[in-house]
């Protein structure tokens, strides 16, 4: 029998980014005991990387903004396959969640009359993003972190969950290891909230850190939960591309929100060349009008650089493929040009985009107030995730909740920038609230000891094979390269079929992975244990992407380049079949209530 420490909580929250922290705070407020597991140290989760802002219809800068406009923007951005109830709740509740952050100590940038300032962002009709320069995510995570440490929550830092534990149908805990000593831990809980973030590490070029290996997606899938929308991966249009070691690091959309423009090697603003029909009425006709929009002219429409991320990414790919790219295979993003339009332009850029200024100065020897940046698409976010009830965030497995990036529904086929920081606080709160309420209604149950033994044994296998086995990093690299090439921004059937074969081969290699050394803080071992998760989410992405024979949002196929009406009525779900094989099914999108339909009609 493997040795392990046991911890007991009413609610166990797995993940300590914005969604996990917000869930833990709310669950604790519900009067139950809460455990919070972080894969890294507290306050280091990927939320810290969010730059541009939090979308909420506060109407501080433009009083025409309301939840209805935000709702319809979110649905349009998601190409109408979103969970409309989540989009509605999100638009209605995000202003309160943002104001709550201020009550907990967040310090947003201000308007002239002292209110929270809001900025323009892609796909949002009005300036809607509450922000702190370009480090909004840091402000959000620090505010929640500094609040949670006074709420009586037990924090388990540098701890990774390997499996959810069940009693019959219901989730009753989780099993994992702590990094420092490599010891196993069993968490007994009446409810578990997954808030583990994304899957970016399945791709070679990504803005995500090592942590984002689809843990929550896989834990839920293995426990019998449905995943939904897995084909929809967001490739952010502007990642750094040079030098090679920084490839993929995010360049915030706020650069474009502040007036930055995209140009090809011929100096042309190519975004004007292809404006999708459903955005034409909202997009500027001229460069001059676009500039006036970024400077707050309410009569002007937004420049095409602020179209949705899926579209901008594809336009960049088109320019590069047509031979009009920048020297290192991207395009140019120019913010320096605004110096010709505003006094003290260089100072203005440094003030509005301080981290971008430093990031390029330090990592690329480039002064963004003088020269254009070279940028290209980077894997950034997955719209797909655990299928949850919109109001409670509970999955189809009793006792299992999910919130934030690892849950799905709100974003549909494409997420608008700024909607993830609002998503995590709106649905993090809901998940915590309903998990606590659920925990009060059920009795504690003991996890199955056999299940624990199986998982623990499997976790130690890489040591048995030792350094004679396959290297974990080599398998991870091969997976990332394959997903990038075959299931990336532009997809087609033959390549994705090839990827399915490749995944099978990689699964076999992952089964032979071996590591040296011992269990104490051994990153090789940790990388080996993350591999099954990466393989599961990669397979889910590939299988759903094959089934969706059209192009929509983040999912683009060159063998089916157009949107198909018939695909707008359902979502693809994946679940683990009885024989352990992955099954793909269709779930009809419920009929939207008349009042929501009317809102969408009015905002067209």
């Amino acid at each position, binding site marked *: 029998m493997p040795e392990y420490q046991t911890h007991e909580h009413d609610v166990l929250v797995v993940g300590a980014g914005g969604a996990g922290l917000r869930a833990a705070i709310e669950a604790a407020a519900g009067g139950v005991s809460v455990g919070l597991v972080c894969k890294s140290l507290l306050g280091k989760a990927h939320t810290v990387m969010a730059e541009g802002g939090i979308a909420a219809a506060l109407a501080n800068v433009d009083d025409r903004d309301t939840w209805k406009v935000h709702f319809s923007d979110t649905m349009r951005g998601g190409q109408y396959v979103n969970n409309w109830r989540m989009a509605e709740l999100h638009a209605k509740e995000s202003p309160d969640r943002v104001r709550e952050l201020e009550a907990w100590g967040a*310090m947003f940038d201000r308007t002239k009359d002292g209110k929270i300032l809001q900025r323009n962002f892609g796909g949002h009709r009005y300036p809607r993003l509450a922000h702190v320069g370009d480090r909004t995510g*840091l402000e959000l995570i620090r505010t929640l972190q*500094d609040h949670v440490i006074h709420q009586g929550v037990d924090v388990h830092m540098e701890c990774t969950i390997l499996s959810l534990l069940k009693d019959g149908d219901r989730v009753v805990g989780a099993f994992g290891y702590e990094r420092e000593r490599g010891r196993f831990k069993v968490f007994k809980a009446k409810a578990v909230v997954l808030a583990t973030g994304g899957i970016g590490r399945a791709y070679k070029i990504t803005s995500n850190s090592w942590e984002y290996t689809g843990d929550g997606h896989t834990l839920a899938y293995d426990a019998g939960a449905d995943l939904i929308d897995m084909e929809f991966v967001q490739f952010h249009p502007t990642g750094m591309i040079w*030098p090679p*070691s920084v490839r993929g690091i995010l360049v915030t959309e706020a650069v474009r929100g502040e007036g930055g423009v995209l140009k090809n090697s011929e100096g042309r603003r190519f975004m004007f060349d292809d404006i999708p029909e459903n955005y034409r009425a909202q997009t500027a006709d001229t460069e001059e009008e676009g500039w006036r929009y970024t400077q707050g002219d309410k009569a002007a429409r937004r420049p095409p650089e602020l179209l949705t991320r899926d579209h901008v990414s594809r336009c960049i790919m088109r320019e590069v493929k047509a031979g009009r790219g920048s020297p290192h295979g991207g395009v140019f993003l120019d913010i320096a040009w605004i110096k010709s339009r505003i006094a003290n332009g260089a100072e203005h850029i440094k003030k509005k985009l301080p981290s971008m200024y430093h990031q390029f100065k330090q990592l690329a020897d480039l002064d963004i107030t003088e020269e254009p940046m070279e940028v290209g698409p980077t894997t950034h976010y997955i719209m797909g995730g655990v299928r949850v009830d919109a109001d409670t965030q509970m999955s189809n497995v009793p006792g299992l909740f999910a919130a934030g990036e690892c849950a799905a529904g709100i974003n549909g086929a494409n997420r608008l920038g700024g909607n993830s920081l609002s998503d995590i606080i709106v649905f993090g709160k809901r998940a915590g609230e309903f998990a606590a309420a659920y925990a009060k209604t059920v009795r504690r149950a003991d996890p199955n000891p056999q299940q624990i033994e199986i998982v623990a044994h499997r976790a130690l296998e890489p040591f048995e094979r030792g*350094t004679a086995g396959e290297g974990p*990093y080599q398998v991870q690299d091969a997976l990332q390269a394959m997903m990038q090439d075959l299931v990336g921004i532009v997809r087609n059937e033959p390549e994705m079929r090839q990827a399915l074969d490749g995944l099978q081969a990689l699964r076999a290699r992952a089964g032979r992975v071996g590591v040296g*050394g011992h269990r*104490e*803080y051994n990153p090789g071992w940790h990388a080996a244990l993350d591999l099954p998760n990466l393989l599961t989410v990669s397979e889910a992405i590939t299988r759903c992407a094959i089934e969706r024979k059209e192009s929509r949002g983040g999912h683009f196929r060159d063998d089916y380049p157009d949107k198909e009406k018939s695909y707008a009525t359902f979502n693809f779900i994946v679940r683990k079949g009885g024989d352990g094989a992955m099954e793909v099914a269709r779930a009809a999108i419920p009929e939207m209530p008349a009042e929501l339909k009317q809102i969408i009609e009015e905002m067209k």
Partner: protein
Amino acid sequence: MAPSATSATSATFRVWRGDAERGEFRDYTTDVSEGMVVLDAVHSIQAGQANDLAVRWNCKAGKCGSCSAEVNGNPRLMCMTRLNQLDLSKPVTIEPMRAFPLIRDLVTDVSWNFQAKQGIRKFKPRPADSPDGTWRMAQVDVERVQEFRKCIECFLCQDVCHVLRDHQMFDAFVGPRHLVYAAALEMNPLDTHNRTRALKQDRGIGYCNITKCCTKVCPEGITITDNAIIPLKERVIDQLYDPIAKVFRALRGGRHV
């Protein structure tokens, strides 16, 4: 001039390997290319030569503050230290932060920092300014505090602080990071707590003798000593030592500190 990373094709890194009981520097030679940072070299060593080399990192963009270490003796974020800033003609030493207990290789036990923060009274705002529960603040007041809120909690300032590093006075002094945290709270225009007495008695602000080592290593460029610690020290003196101010406060019935 020393060869830069752009011209060299390989370089040697002298990396600390070991745990709390014993350890040693070990040399690893690995390929280097244009634009690489120290963390890239560590990853390359980890992937090819030492799978179990322990290192903390997350964002690789200077935003999360996880990969703090001492590179050629200088406290740095490994992800923001370019190889072309280093002399690659001799081995580059990479060792863990020395002020904190070692866990393994480049990873230290920084848990004390999280406990120290918990001891500082949390933010408590004044009643809302507007019936909708919101406040009004001027950008200029916000900016003063935003400087402190840029902190990414890399703990490099704690690592170089003499009081912590050389004298190991973790029980008596919270260190520059948490004085910055306290300053952000104290200077927040909405906050209503007064932490002055606690800063003196429990958090040991008097131990800081303003050598500014913390300010020099801050990767976020926070002017820790001048903008955070000295103003807090002045508050301590004004509120706890100034006899004239004391009399005034007594007469006016001011806030007890």
